[in-house]
């Protein structure tokens, strides 16, 4: 009989890095029977994270698969499971199942310019892509990262921005919905900021993740800028339980987000019913 698809593997929290008042990056190590500290994964995949006794939730992987040992999840405190996760401490045990789902087609995109557009905690799966691109820097053209949050305090991965900006041929554009006295950067919504920056669609693929309302307007803005729907990629969020296409709730039309997604091109989404 095959392995039990519902049984989580145990993992230890190695570090907890606060990003904002309600977002923490958890670094995890599997307590692998063969000494492995993580599973193999690709940028864009997710895992089911458990706090035993509380439950399980699908969380996108924040780290890049390029360093051999790292497995990180940046998690916003928003529901029962994520609240329980935030109450844990370094050294505590959690359960992990995964990785699940498809991934961003980074191999196919080699040679292209990359436009990364994130909003809020939506930068979490984007960070896996960003760090992955940086570790394969020579294979891609220009990398532009446009990221926005509600306020300067809500921007995640702040400690990494300087490093990102120093990567060759890379631009980082930040915006917030509401600034404060110290904020010197742009104030305004991500889709508008995107239009101001006016990136060329030529040989460029846009990858976006954020709140649904942001994605909707980012996609419109990209179309206005001349991006075709094959060259816009996003990752979808749905309520999930099993992660493996059995429990029946995460479908968009006939596609299970857990199996057929979470990564879809805009072209694929246009061919799917809009629920």
């Amino acid at each position: 009989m095959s392995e039990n698809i519902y049984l989580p593997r145990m993992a230890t929290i190695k570090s907890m890095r606060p990003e904002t008042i309600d977002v923490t990056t958890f670094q995890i190590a599997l307590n692998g029977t063969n000494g492995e500290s993580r599973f193999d994964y690709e940028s864009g995949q997710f895992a089911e994270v458990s706090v035993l006794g509380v439950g399980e939730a699908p969380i996108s992987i924040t780290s890049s698969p390029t360093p051999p040992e790292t497995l990180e999840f940046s998690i916003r405190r928003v529901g029962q499971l994520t609240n329980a996760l935030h109450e844990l401490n370094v050294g505590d045990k959690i359960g992990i199942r995964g990785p699940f789902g498809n991934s961003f087609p980074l191999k196919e995109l080699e040679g292209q310019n990359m436009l990364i557009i994130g909003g809020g905690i939506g930068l979490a799966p984007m960070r896996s892509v960003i760090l992955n691109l940086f570790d394969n820097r020579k294979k891609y053209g220009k990398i532009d990262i446009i990221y926005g949050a509600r306020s300067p305090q809500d921007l995640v991965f702040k400690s990494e921005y300087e490093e990102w900006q120093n990567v060759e041929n890379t631009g980082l554009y930040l915006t917030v919905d509401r600034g404060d006295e110290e904020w010197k950067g742009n104030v305004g919504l991500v889709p508008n900021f995107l239009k101001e920056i006016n990136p060329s669609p030529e040989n460029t693929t846009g990858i976006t993740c954020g709140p649904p309302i942001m994605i909707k307007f980012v996609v419109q803005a990209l179309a206005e800028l001349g991006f075709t729907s094959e060259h816009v990629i996003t990752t979808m969020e749905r309520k999930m339980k099993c992660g493996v296409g059995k429990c029946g709730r995460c479908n968009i039309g006939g596609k299970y987000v857990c199996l057929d997604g979470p990564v879809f091109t805009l072209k694929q989404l246009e061919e799917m019913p809009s629920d």
Partner: protein
Amino acid sequence: MVTKVKSKIIKKNRLTELLDKLAKEYDLIGPVQDNVISFKQVKSGSEITLDFVNSVLSPKNAFFPQTETLFRFSGDGEGFKAEPEPETDKERVIFGIRACDARSLHLMDMVFGGQLEDSYYMRKRAKTILIGLACFNPAETCFCPTFGIDPTSPEGVDIVFTDVDDRYWVQALTEKGASLLDQLAEFFDEPLGDEAKLKDAKAAGLTKMKKLDVAGLPDKMEPLYNDAYWESIGMKCLGCGICTYLCPTCHCFDLVDEGRDEGGERFRSWDSCMFPDFTLMASGENPRPDQKARVQQRFFHKLKYFPDRYGEVACTGCGRCLKYCPVNINITKIIGDVMSGKTKNE
């Protein structure tokens, strides 16, 4: 499949004795009259009733229980052991399954089997011998011939029992079935030769059974996405979930933890696409925010998404959902409307 069907008969007055023997050597599950007729494990043959059109609850529960512990965990973190519930390895026999419900197991096999196999379901399937019971007295709500099902000849079972005259005609359809018949040889006699004729005579009356046209149904569903048609059905629907509860092909479930510091368990339980929180996310987003969206999901899943993914419509024509829906939402009417294009008049 056995090349030659092993064919026997058993006198009706020996059936209880046979079932007693099965109950002794196997975990025997059969139709039992409680408040309603449903499939339950029995200790003796006399608990089983054969006086029913179809059970209110299908035997789905025997493979995909309404609640099922997936594993237990201990509370100290260190000593965490995710231990699946031990299952008895005793072989099971389900006696009296109808052709429609046998088909539903075939449909659920496609969900729970495959590459990412659900070992809980598949293990129960592997250790169960299915004995089908030919149906000659369908209800008005039945429409299984729509899906190519012959109620008098259940498929996907190991043995078929057919009530003919003073005896049951007993046919083994699989090796597993044939070897069970060998094992119980003392109860069986050779057929008298008129069984097929007697069966055909009984089946002749069934030609009047409802058989809907479903040719190209999934393609006809496609343009109806977000159609106002679902609005009118959604308005009627109470969201009670009885259709999904009784449906032999509905397989959606929830995963829930119970207990924490003192240790506990993760179990799964049936869930329903009719319920608002089925798709409600912690962020407050709900991709199916109203009953229209949920009703549409149910019928699209049965009639479009499932056939697109697995090649077959996820309905067996058992008629339970239309019989028990408190507001008479009727899948046969919906299929008829879709096929005839009448959805525009709603």
